[in-house]
């Protein structure tokens, strides 16, 4: 079964093109890694899958539907640097936000939501920190709070932006354990990852990205292909240079 389908996905941020004509299909029930160098558009692709960025061309379907239609079946975990961790909330408050998607305007979280948040906290080993303030957390703990919030959403498709970036060893263990657990439950998990060397042992499927789609497929195939072609890195620099020039011109014409 196909969980995610991208067709000719192209995204630009102002002057800069972030993704260019990406076409791929990602199977359901797998642990999928999106890999590529810095600025390759990994996060952009993930954000596009949740409908957070406007595509300038192409389309994305989740479970055969538009992303906006299946929000409740999708859980998104942003990079932790994107928020202000000095915000006056407790750990539990944040994890509870995972349930907000189901609550209407004015509705308060009910007992079941509290229990769900509690369970999610236990899964990431933060149950003793439930009442702590965000400003008191270490980087790894912040990451686990975000992970717990994603788990509290109880989705079918999990999209995680760099959950393993810059975390301590204990948190890395937790994240990997959670990923494993999600796979066991038959969920689809897409993770943005920056480290090609650890892909083989941890993921089933890989999307190799560098502005363009370089390769997409089961890990063994793609990694050999990547090695054969040497497609990863330097040689594609040309392409991104050109893309910048092109988009700059096009943007200048369109938006001034």
């Amino acid at each position, binding site marked *: 079964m196909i969980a995610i389908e991208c067709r000719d996905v192209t995204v630009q941020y102002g002057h800069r093109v972030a993704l260019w004509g990406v076409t791929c299909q990602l199977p359901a029930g797998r642990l999928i890694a999106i890999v590529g160098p810095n600025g390759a558009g990994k996060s952009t692709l993930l*954000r596009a899958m*949740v*409908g*957070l960025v406007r595509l300038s061309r192409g389309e994305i379907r989740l479970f055969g539907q538009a992303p*906006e239609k299946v*929000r409740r079946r*999708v859980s*998104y*975990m*942003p990079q932790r640097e*994107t*928020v*202000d961790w000095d*915000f*006056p*909330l*407790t750990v539990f*408050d*944040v994890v509870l*936000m995972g349930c*907000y*998607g189901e*609550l209407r*305007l*004015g509705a*308060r*979280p009910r007992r079941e939501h509290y229990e769900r948040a509690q369970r999610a906290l*236990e*899964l*990431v*080993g*933060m*149950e*003793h*920190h439930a009442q*702590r*303030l965000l*400003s*008191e*957390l*270490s980087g*790894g*703990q912040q990451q686990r709070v975000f992970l717990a*919030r994603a788990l509290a*959403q109880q989705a079918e498709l999990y999209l995680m932006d760099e959950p393993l970036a810059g975390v*301590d060893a*204990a*948190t890395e*263990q*937790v994240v990997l*354990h*959670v990923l494993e657990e999600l796979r066991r439950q038959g969920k689809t998990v897409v993770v943005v990852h920056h480290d090609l060397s650890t892909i083989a042992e941890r993921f089933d499927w890989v999307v190799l990205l560098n502005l363009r789609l370089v390769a997409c497929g089961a890990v063994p195939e793609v990694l050999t292909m990547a090695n054969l072609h040497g497609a990863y890195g330097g040689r594609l620099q040309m392409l991104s240079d050109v893309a910048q020039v092109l988009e700059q011109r096009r943007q200048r014409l369109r*938006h*001034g």
Partner: protein
Amino acid sequence: MDVVWTLATAVTLALACALLGSFLALRRTLLLGDALSHAVLPGVVLAFLWSGSRELLPMLLGAGAAALMATLLLELLQWRFRVHPDAALGAVLATFFAAGIFLLSRFAGQVDLDAECVLYGELAYVPLELVSVMGVEAPRGLWTSAVLLAGVGLFVWLAYKELALVSFDPTFAASIGRSPRRWSLALMGLTAAVTVVALELVGAILVVALLVGPAAGARLLTRRLPQMLLVSALLALSSVGVGYGLAWAFDGALAGWIAVVAGGHVVVLVLLRRLRKAPASAQEPFAAEQGDDHAQQPR
């Protein structure tokens, strides 16, 4: 009795401002509140000229139109012409306010407002105009600000979790279908409404002070959102109370004094915190590290 009416009106407005200001402070958009409070002026004056009265509805419509125009202009400057947000905000704010003052002075005879009044209001005149609603007689200003406070209170009560969500993590909020843009527009709309009412009663400067002061002070004093809302309300009360006391003791415009107290207590709080923290600051980075030692292994 007049004193009671004046104080009650000021307190009601201050509470509404403090509630809204808290969310603006968390989103770091307090200056947008400042800008809006200035930018609605031409709309209000034009509505005055058109309707010839102080009816609230035309004023709100005029202010809404002006606020909308200002917002559009801001977006245009920022996205089309790549002007830095701060500069765009400053430019739009001052130009709109200039237009308002221009209209006020040009049509001075026909408008029951004057330029100074727009700046620092006429709280003392509030009790002069009594209106009876359902058999209860109270100043018109108090009625309008009470309606406003009720509106703001209801909004915050209903949308508390959305506001918290959108302010803390807009990306995540958008991913679960809560548009950050729409909620920030709602917040701006309410701010504009508060401004319109306040402009007539207490003046632009006091709106800014009441939006900024209590919220900023509460942000310093508290560490959780519900407490922050509560403390900002208390600080709003104390600003009005102490401000009134000072105005009574030393004379001068009440709105001016309230603004002084609202801004002043933040400065005092910062000072106190610095003094208290100086010896203890060495321990602070520790708190975060300790957290890691407690980290649990997955099970």
